[in-house]
């Protein structure tokens, strides 16, 4: 038997495989396909203070080896989440991580507070990839000052582990990783989707009703691996890696560059049991490689000696 268990900011996970926010609903939607007890953690759809309707349709469009989405963070709101969705998840012996966002710092704080007090929430994942009303809708996740402010404000009210989920739409992910750590994050997760666009050439209009959307799926995996690697070099806190993971082999790349856990997103749509397949594939890999413990695989990257710029 190999050990798959990892520890993320004080939470012990049975295995290092979680679901990525927004791709697994509130857990219940996939409970018919996946024994939720087998997952490392369940990360639910992003929650805001008030229910949110999201964008008009079309909200998704398939692109080569991936998809664009502009769901617009539709969700039931924190109150209904706690009263209607959380009781279902509490039946399982799997940590629940709640992804949340707001369009102002006050909203972030109020939502975080409610979730911090809710029974059955193991950790909070702060989604900074959303626009800020007060700052002319500029994005929390791409503006260092805004991002620091929101993390510090949320940290003040949150006693549970706080994970900051980083946006990849920045020029220096190392800097954003360090800022998150310095502002009090217990862990960081990355990457969120990469902003993209597709055009209907007959209509000369964007395909998505929102014009732009977030790219996810295998197409973004090399970018995700590079960013997770960069982040792991500069922070002491655990890093949760995601972006385009379809198989255990994909996940292993993230562990090797230093991720302590991984999340499976778009792959769930293609294969509702993708999480379980990744877990069993990881186990087989460790056995075949003669590795007793997943923790001794993490961060074992052997770099080439660099001679030139890429």
């Amino acid at each position, binding site marked *: 038997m190999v050990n798959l268990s990892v520890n993320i900011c004080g939470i012990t996970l049975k295995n290092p495989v979680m679901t990525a926010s927004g791709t697994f*609903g509130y857990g219940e939607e996939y409970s*018919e396909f996946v024994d939720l007890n087998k997952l490392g953690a369940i990360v639910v759809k992003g929650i805001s203070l008030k229910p949110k309707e999201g964008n008009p349709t*079309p*909200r998704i469009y*398939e692109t080569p080896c991936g998809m664009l*989405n502009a*769901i617009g963070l539709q969700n039931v709101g924190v109150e209904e989440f706690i009263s209607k969705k959380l009781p279902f998840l509490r039946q399982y012996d799997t940590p629940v991580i709640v992804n949340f966002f707001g369009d102002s710092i006050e909203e972030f704080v109020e939502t975080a507070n409610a979730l911090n007090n809710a029974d059955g929430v193991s950790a909070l994942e702060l989604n900074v990839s959303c626009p800020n009303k007060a700052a002319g809708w500029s994005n929390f996740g791409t503006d260092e000052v805004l991002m620091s402010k929101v993390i510090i404000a949320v940290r003040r009210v949150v006693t549970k582990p706080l994970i900051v989920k980083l946006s990849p739409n920045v020029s220096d992910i190392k800097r954003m990783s360090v800022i998150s750590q310095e502002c009090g994050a217990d862990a960081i997760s990355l990457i969120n989707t990469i902003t993209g666009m597709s055009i209907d050439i007959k209509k000369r209009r964007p395909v998505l009703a929102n014009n732009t959307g977030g790219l996810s799926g*295998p197409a973004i995996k090399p970018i995700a691996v590079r960013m997770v690697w960069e982040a792991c070099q500069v922070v002491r806190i655990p890093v949760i890696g995601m972006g385009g993971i379809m198989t255990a082999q994909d996940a292993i790349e993230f562990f090797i560059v230093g991720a302590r856990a991984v999340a499976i997103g778009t792959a*769930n749509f293609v294969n509702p049991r993708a999480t379980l397949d990744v877990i069993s594939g990881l186990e087989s890999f460790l056995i075949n490689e003669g590795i007793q413990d997943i923790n001794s695989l993490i961060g074992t990257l052997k770099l080439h000696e660099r001679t030139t710029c890429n």
Partner: protein
Amino acid sequence: MDRYFKAEIKGNYKVNPTTAVISFSPKEGVQLPQPGQFYMIQVSKGIDPLLKRPLSIFSIKDQCIHLLYKIVGRGTECLSKLPLGETIELIGPLGIPYPTPNGEFIAIAGGTGVASIHGLIERFSQKAYLFYGARSVEELIMTDSIKNLSYQSFFSTDDGSYGIKGTVIDALDRVDNLTMDVYACGPHLMLSAVINWARQRGLRCYVSLEEYMACGVGACLSCVVRTNDGLKSVCKDGPVFNSEDIVW
């Protein structure tokens, strides 16, 4: 009752240059579908195209499930090239089926909406007043089978190349005493017209909707439609809705 399963392709034949029927036999223990439900079907072996495509139940016959699809893009193009004997993954049956008709009913199909309506009239054979419209005769499919399954059938084409010249509404307006429940599947514009037609006559109307889908199980929230009770997922709360519940 596993709704995520693999099946061997038993048939994959074109019924006209741009439309094909793919068939598979469900494994033992797999839930049998109801008319109006759909499957998310794998269209390629690799990761491009990545997502499964939603296709309605066209027919359940000879221990096989048959899905009829129009080749409109890369996904359906790939699907049409899959050989017999290949094993593919499916998720389904998904969604809420058509409610069981009380006796006779009006069934209205536009374009590839015929797939889902065919599934319905096959199950409730000889009960349907069927109205089936398309742009031209080349796009009408399975007209003989549809005639046989329906109690009465009326065809319409925009260019008059088959049946009545005009839309399904023009065809409906020519028939007297249509007072039964309405079941419709087709393009958005046709459904809007059908809903209006039914409303003017005080008829109950069920419509099967289409939206872009990724998961098919209500998790990704890509396929929403506005209803009197807020946003609903077409894949999970539909695809069949009572027309009075939806807000377009």
